[in-house]
């Protein structure tokens, strides 16, 4: 059959790329204009307004799809509309990839257009909304008939729709509070990002804060400016009693090593003092100059000063403070004076307590393993299960993509 080729004027239906991109870019620019006039970031409404908005949104798309028979409705679920919307959204995210976000001192035009806080700007809200509308219409149009292919399509698209909607609307209902507790102390006051204090319905006692550290390492330090002489990926020498190894032209031997020690006149000795630092007695043989030096070195701590071992005019041997391997807080949560529960909170191992998830986030880094406090984070994210449903839908839909690939074979075209 011959295909008739007629030139379609701009705005004539069915709409194609020119109209799609015009609409998408207009949305973006409108967003910038609204941003410039309102001046501040958008804050989305919380419960229960957000669920009402979501419900009305879905209902609207459904009703329009069902009852309005206008070519524009068809356009809303066309690949051209999708491509234009995704393109404009990509441009916005691309700007986010280049412009540092949340900088206090940004140039005037960045602040006006909201480009230094994109995810809270009107431009972002409007383009994301356009994306969601188009995605919504597409999902409804392709929902039936129920075939394996359509199921995969549904899982990917509806999953993405759910993730974006639940994550954005849920952000207003998200609680994230920081809870610092001193060792031995009890606290029931937590703080939000703006340092506003909240009283918790329970009290948290920090029974113990623990850090396990990796062994300290040795490196060569430039005498001129005290910086380490190493490139990224260089191997460092890990300290262990009796260990031998090479660092540049120096052959090292660790004669003695104390994990916790204190300087005692000229030598180091084990110590249980707060702030005791690792120290090692090291022999260094300069294989080029045939020179040998022996001496104590220590990484020092907030309480004791470090010592270095000068090897020649340019470099000294230095011990690098051990980095934490894991840290955790033993806490006791009191619901009342008598009723309490014990937990251990560790990085990557949050604990759940009455609707909250409690994370280990920080400690007094200056004091390291002697830290006298722990910083916990309390997160309440009621929309999380919905986001997870969306995520697992996309995961399932993507498995289909791996297996089927581009379903239509070339021969069938």
């Amino acid at each position, binding site marked *: 059959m011959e295909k008739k080729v007629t030139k379609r004027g701009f705005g004539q239906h069915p709409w194609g790329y020119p109209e799609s991109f015009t609409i998408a870019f207009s949305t973006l620019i409108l967003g910038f204009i609204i941003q410039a006039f309102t001046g501040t970031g958008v804050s989305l409404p919380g419960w229960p307004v957000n669920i009402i908005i979501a419900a009305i949104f879905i209902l609207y798309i459904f009703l329009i799809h069902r009852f309005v028979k206008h070519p524009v409705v068809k356009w809303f679920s066309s*690949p*051209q509309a*999708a*491509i234009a919307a*995704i*393109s404009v*959204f*990509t441009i916005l*995210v*691309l700007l*986010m*990839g*280049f*412009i*540092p*976000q949340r900088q206090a001192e940004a140039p005037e035009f960045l602040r006006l257009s909201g480009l230094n806080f994109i*995810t809270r700007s009107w431009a972002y809200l409007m383009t994301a909304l356009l994306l969601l509308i188009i995605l919504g219409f597409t999902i409804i149009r392709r929902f039936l008939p129920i075939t394996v292919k359509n199921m995969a399509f549904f899982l990917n698209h509806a999953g993405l729709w759910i993730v974006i909607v639940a*994550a954005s609307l849920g952000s207003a209902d998200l609680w*994230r509070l920081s809870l610092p507790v001193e060792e031995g102390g009890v606290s029931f006051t937590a703080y939000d990002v703006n340092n506003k204090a909240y009283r918790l319905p329970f009290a948290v006692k920090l029974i113990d804060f623990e850090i396990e550290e*990796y062994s300290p*390492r040795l490196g060569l330090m430039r005498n001129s400016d005290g910086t380490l002489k190493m490139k*990224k990926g260089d*191997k460092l020498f*890990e300290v262990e009693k009796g260990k031998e190894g090479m660092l540049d032209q120096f052959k090292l031997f660790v004669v003695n090593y104390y994990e916790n020690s204190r300087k005692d006149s000229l030598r180091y000795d084990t110590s249980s003092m707060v702030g005791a630092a690792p120290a090692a007695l090291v022999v260094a043989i300069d294989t080029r100059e045939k020179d040998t030096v022996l001496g104590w070195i220590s990484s020092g701590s907030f309480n004791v000063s470090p010592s270095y071992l000068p090897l020649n005019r340019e470099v000294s041997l230095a011990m690098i403070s051990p*980095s*934490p*391997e*894991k*840290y955790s807080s033993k806490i006791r949560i009191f619901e009342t004076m008598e009723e309490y529960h014990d937990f251990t909170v*560790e*990085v*990557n*191992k*949050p604990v759940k307590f009455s609707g909250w*998830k409690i*994370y280990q*986030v920080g400690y007094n880094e200056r004091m390291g393993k002697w830290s006298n406090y722990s910083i916990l*984070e309390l*997160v309440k994210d009621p929309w*999380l299960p919905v*986001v997870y449903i969306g*995520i697992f839908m*996309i*995961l399932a839909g*993507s*498995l289909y*993509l*791996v*297996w*089927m*690939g*581009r379903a239509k*074979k*070339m021969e069938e*075209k």
Partner: protein
Amino acid sequence: MTWIHYPIFVYITTFLWLMGLLMALYDQSRMYRIFRDILLMTGTATIILFSILLWHSLERPPFRTLAETRLWYSIFTAIIGLVIFYRWKMKWMLAYALVMAIVFLFINYFKPDTFDKTLMPALQSPWFIPHVIVYIIGYALLAVSSLIGIKGLYLLYKGKLVDKSIWLADNVVYIGFAFLTFGLLFGALWAKEAWGHYWTWDPKETWAFITWLVYLLYIHFRIRKRKSVKAALWILALAFVALLICWFGINYLPSAQSSVHVYSS
């Protein structure tokens, strides 16, 4: 069965995999293929057997030390490579995955405990390995799709037919895109466990998302405009730029100065 017996398993697996790979590259007859399958399967089974025996002797799942996790790296990479190979007949993917798996086996062999020993606490998670493996596979596939795209463009300018190239590119993009999606989502699930938020617009996340969006554009562009092969090939080449920035360039961007993914000491 402990690490003492590890070398013998490594030798057997490596030998079987390499032989199987060789036969896969030159497959000619049915006999060839059966032989190839036996080699590949036995090789994989051998190293899986080792981890089961190791598990048994340790009396705990071998997921704790670096050497143990690297063993899983190796096994999963090989399995993904095999699945993609059998489903899609991509010989290069099999070669890539097996060589990578062998490299992991040998890192364990030569330096069981070095290499990233001082893993910061947030990285010590069961999510770490799947997150990285699926990204590596995704990036490899997408990089290949871009190579196909560039070859297609070259053919196009020479006035040759590119139908086969674009068909291959489509499939590779679909699979690679799915793995990129896995990477993003595993990262999100992990971040929730480690930091309490699944998405923070960290620069690396942002760039991975940009890369994802550009390939998403490609996929949707291919739905209708079957004839605009040239534009599609250009999108592929462009997507590669985003991929490279995400992979290598991220450390140099002004927006990335506070990324949790830029590790420096």
